[in-house]
């Protein structure tokens, strides 16, 4: 069964796109056939990756009523594909999510992904309406992205509130966990925020928090996931290997199946 995860947050700029992109890369590196779908009209995945920015994707498929996965981009990793948002016609911005709902755009993306992907990750826009709401209704799991700062923490319960309401009216989405981002042990407010995240959300919080690190800006500038910033990946990219291992554990899935002991190097 293909699993689907939305990375979501009411508050903007908390690191959803950064986490979704680098998790997708880490999942694919572990061997999970992964599709990363950009549901943000901003086109953040396209903006984050050199060579993807001007490609057509979900928006064009919606506008033309074409197949939902048209414009899917293959990557250097055989297991990782991207479905960017692509350019959105300026006058369509306003009704975009309404049209996407009418066309069951994300539902069809998931349907079409069943055969070729183990995992579909959705990067969602900030906010709880529009495309975010659509994605939350379609996925089976939601990862709440919480920046380690006061406003993001204050906004977090509203995402849970929406999830609870969606579940009441029949959606299958459940909270897979909360990931703290841009954490720093040096800044007292950020540290207090992370501590409060732990104390409030307890075992829902992933043990792995994404630290605030200048390398993220370098990766944005180069337009690559952290893991491809240089031949020897920056140390901080290992954070996503750990995070992804935790996510897998919570999904009840392990890449490559159950551990059945040592593997011979030579056959």
């Amino acid at each position: 069964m293909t699993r689907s995860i939305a990375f979501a947050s009411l508050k903007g700029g908390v690191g959803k796109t950064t986490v979704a992109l680098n998790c997708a890369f880490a999942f694919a590196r572990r061997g999970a056939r992964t599709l990363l779908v950009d549901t943000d009209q901003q086109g953040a995945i396209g903006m984050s990756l050199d060579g993807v920015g001007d490609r057509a994707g979900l928006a064009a498929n919606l506008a033309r009523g074409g197949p939902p996965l048209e414009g899917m981009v293959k990557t250097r990793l055989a297991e990782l594909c991207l479905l960017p948002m692509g350019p959105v016609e300026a006058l369509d911005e306003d009704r975009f999510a309404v049209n996407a709902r009418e066309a069951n755009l994300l539902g069809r993306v998931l349907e079409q992904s069943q055969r070729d992907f183990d995992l579909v990750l959705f990067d969602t826009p900030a906010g709880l309406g529009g495309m975010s709401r659509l994605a939350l209704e379609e996925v089976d799991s939601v990862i709440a992205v919480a920046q380690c700062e006061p406003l993001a923490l204050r906004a977090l319960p509203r995402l849970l509130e929406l999830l609870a309401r969606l579940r009441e009216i029949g959606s299958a989405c459940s909270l897979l966990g909360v990931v703290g981002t841009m954490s720093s042990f040096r800044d007292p407010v950020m540290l207090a925020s992370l501590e409060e995240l732990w104390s409030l959300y307890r075992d829902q919080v992933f043990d792995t928090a994404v630290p605030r690190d200048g390398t993220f800006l370098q990766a944005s500038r180069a337009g690559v996931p952290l893991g491809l910033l240089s031949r020897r990946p920056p140390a901080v990219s290992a954070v996503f290997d750990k995070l992804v291992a935790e996510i897998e554990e919570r999904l009840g899935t392990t890449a490559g199946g159950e551990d059945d002991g040592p593997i011979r190097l030579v056959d």
Partner: protein
Amino acid sequence: MTVRSVSWTDAQRVSSLLARVTATRSPEPAALVSAMGAARAGAPGKAAPTPAKAAPKAPKEVPRLVQTSDNPADRLDALVAWTLAHQACVGAFVADDNGLTLAAHGISEAHVSLVGPLLSALVGVRTIPGVDATAGALWLGAQMMSWVEARTTRGGFCLGTVGDEALSTRAFEQLKEALGTTVRGL
């Protein structure tokens, strides 16, 4: 409170929200890669009318169960298939008043043997005034067994599910209705 918290969030509110949005996690790992779509072990004995999904999603819109056959076995099989397809469960069964399993898929031998004692325990519970024992649920280790009952002139019937999460009130209503539709014609 002298120093306000960072989040201005009430811990109790968060706890109750978390309880509403988290699913119980399956303890047994399934392979993310390659083994996608592999169904869980089937029920002992009888073959299932339709294959069970590994973990059926709670559906958006649950269609009403429509029974087209007069044959009791077909009706029960259709009920089990409908339940597996439209409710969040990995197994489903129908049993009679005596705990005898009439149709099942995706539930273990242990669950089958549990149905009898469970139903007889409920007989006692039913006699307590003010207690509605026609639906209920029980955590068994990491899984939840839920059931609804319907009474007919030919005795009582019970439709049960086994899954990783608790069923919603709405799901209970849907199961009751489906069971009612099925046994009405028996």
